[in-house]
């Protein structure tokens, strides 16, 4: 875990639910002094909830948040902040929609915190002017906050937070409301400010490029869980799972088989790689970044070939989609353009192949036995393959069991009524020759589906599973 004295915040086993919806599941995370940490993830992944818990607006259901704390005697200690209200915590927040007080001018907005802490008037004056200068808003102190542009309001919001010299600055998607150019300028300024102030920044965003640009450490979150923690380069070059690979940058995510150490098979060919320890003939996910595939009409050492399907100029590089000889589609970026329709040869270097353990190879769903050919799953009744009774004879109704269903055996229907259960397409991953979908059922469980059909995120679908595709394994079988 490293040097504990260096931590400013230590979060252990944090969980939080809103009603039936568990938004954070067992989050553990530590933050070093002076670090720029980004919580990155799609909307609904729990990143804002985590930030609000650190700020004290929400209380965790389980787990603890420890924070560096200046006690009265001038000593710093590490203490559990459970139950301590936001106004007593040594941190300040920059809110997503700024939350500048509309009844106060720029100066009074920034001086708000200092006045509350009884700082003498002269000192307030010097400090407010100093931060105004830092955010390049010196001439605006008498302005009405509502007369400012989005970018200027953003600067005032940052000034209002840092003028209090917090130990930690929390930023909740502070740039989300700005346009692209403005956002890029502010990113650089934020980074500069961070270096100048030496305060720890915890930054929430759903924008992966922002996270990679700004952070010392990126925490990738999804569905209430931390997926990966690492430096921007680590996260980009060595994603731990297909979610991270897909979320960070562009990538080709493909099904593969680990032949043996340092050799992996995907898109119908064997490739040398640098990964070890995945066993022999085990299914894996393979990530290839688009810029890591080398292309040529005639290429020395080519490993496979394909046909260029499309080629689009993207400013610095060309983006191409190539159908490989094995029928997979690859996204490739290159500085040279290759004509659509032409045959090209390709090669991938061993260290550009990122092999990841598959998170799952089939659906395993908790269910309850009704009788020998029926189970209750997602709160609905499903017919299944006859359940093998183990020794004692009949299968007891009400026993807990697990249903195994292959990804490709789950059918999605246009109309919700057509399926045994309805759900919403939650996450889509293109795997070169098919889509791997995550569907959230109405009962809140996840079903994974392999399909060639094109669905959009948020589509409402019926989920249909044929009886012969549901294999039920009872608890006693698992024990064996």
């Amino acid at each position, binding site marked *: 875990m490293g040097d504990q004295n260096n931590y400013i915040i230590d979060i252990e086993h944090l969980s939080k639910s809103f009603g039936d919806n568990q938004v954070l599941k067992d989050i553990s995370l530590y933050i070093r002094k002076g670090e720029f940490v980004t919580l990155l993830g799609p909307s609904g992944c729990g990143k804002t909830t985590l930030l609000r818990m650190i700020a004290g607006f929400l209380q965790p259901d389980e787990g603890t948040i420890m924070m560096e704390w200046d006690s009265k005697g001038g000593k710093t200690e590490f203490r559990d902040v459970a139950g301590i*209200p936001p*106004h007593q915590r040594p941190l300040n927040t920059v809110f997503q929609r700024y*939350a500048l*007080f509309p009844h106060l001018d720029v100066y009074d907005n920034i001086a708000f*915190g200092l006045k*509350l802490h009884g700082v003498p008037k002269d000192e307030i004056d010097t400090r407010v002017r100093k931060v105004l200068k830092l955010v390049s808003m010196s001439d605006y102190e008498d302005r009405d906050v509502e007369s400012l542009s989005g970018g200027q309001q953003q600067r005032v919001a940052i000034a*209002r*937070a840092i003028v*209090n010299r917090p130990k930690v600055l929390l930023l909740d998607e502070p740039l989300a409301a700005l346009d692209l150019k403005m956002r890029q300028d502010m990113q650089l300024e934020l980074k500069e400010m961070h270096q100048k102030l030496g305060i720890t920044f915890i930054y929430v965003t759903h924008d992966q490029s922002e996270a990679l640009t700004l952070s010392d450490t990126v925490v990738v979150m999804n569905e209430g869980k931390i997926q990966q923690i690492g430096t921007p380069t680590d996260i980009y070059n060595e994603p731990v799972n297909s979610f991270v690979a897909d979320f960070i940058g562009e990538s080709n995510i493909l099904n593969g088989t680990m032949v043996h150490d340092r050799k992996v098979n995907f898109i119908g060919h064997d490739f040398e790689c640098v990964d070890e320890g995945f066993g022999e003939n085990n299914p894996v996910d393979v990530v290839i970044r688009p810029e890591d595939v080398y292309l040529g009409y005639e290429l020395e050492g080519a490993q496979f070939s394909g046909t260029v399907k499309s080629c689009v100029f993207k400013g610095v590089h060309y983006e191409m989609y190539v159908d490989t000889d094995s029928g997979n589609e690859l996204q490739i970026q290159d500085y040279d353009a290759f004509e659509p329709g032409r045959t090209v040869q390709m090669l991938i270097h061993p260290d550009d192949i990122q092999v990841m353990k598959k998170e799952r190879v089939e659906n395993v769903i908790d269910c309850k036995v009704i009788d020998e050919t029926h189970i209750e799953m997602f709160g609905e009744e499903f017919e299944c393959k006859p359940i093998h009774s183990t020794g004692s004879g009949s299968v007891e109704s009400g026993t807990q069991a697990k249903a195994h269903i292959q990804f490709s055996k789950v059918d999605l229907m246009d109309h919700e009524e057509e399926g045994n259960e309805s759900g919403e397409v939650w996450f889509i991953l293109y795997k070169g020759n098919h889509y791997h979908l995550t569907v959230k059922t109405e009962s809140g469980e996840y079903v994974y589906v392999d399909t060639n059909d094109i669905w959009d995120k948020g589509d409402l679908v019926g989920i249909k599973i044929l009886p012969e595709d549901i294999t039920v394994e009872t608890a006693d079988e698992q024990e064996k």
Partner: protein
Amino acid sequence: MSKRSNWAIPYFIFLVLFVVLPLVLIVVYALQDGNGSFTLSNVTRFFTDSDALSTFAVSVEVAIENTLICLLLGYPAAYILADKNLNKSAVTVILFILPMWINALMRTLATAELFNVFGFTLGKGTLLFGMVYDYLPFMIYPIYNVLLKMDKSYAEAASDLGATPVQVFGKVTLPLSMPGIFSGILMVFMPTVSTFAISEFLTNNKIKLFGTIIQENINSSMWNYGAALSLIMLVIIGLTTILLGGDEREVEGGTI
């Protein structure tokens, strides 16, 4: 004139017939004597008529008292109604607004009857009770509306910057709810100055309000003086509105 602006014609006619014309008539009557010649005597008579002046003073006093009581009772009620942690159901809001659905006269008559049954002496106390009962929803609703629409992040930002819950209220929530308060004050103060039915039923005319003397004058065919009194009241209400900067704010938090 484009086609769409033709749609405004019926409303224009309505306004002329039922708002502008009566106002003009009030001004004309107020500035005439019984024979129809121009005079300012009706207006000057008010300022020398000690009975009318004292009635006016009582009216304003009662209206101020009523407005203050409504504000003191109404603000906390609106605050509780708008807080999702304290009030989880829309039914409570409706219960507070429900009396507005029933004619004020009927409510006042019923209140008077209750006072009779329980043997209360009719007077200032019963008058204020009736007024607060009648006008409280008009104070609660605009404040509730403003509080409900207020972005929660203002309060969070204040608390994040070190404000205790009491300071959050005093320095952020209260100042930001001022438009609702102004609206409420206007909607309670203005009609109480001119009311007469409530004082008639709840004090048996023991306490006369400004509205009462207007009504008495008109009833006894003294149209010119009655019109002058109405005009004076209109000016006072107009001044109050301007003082509170009500015109635009009322739109924001005012009606249902």
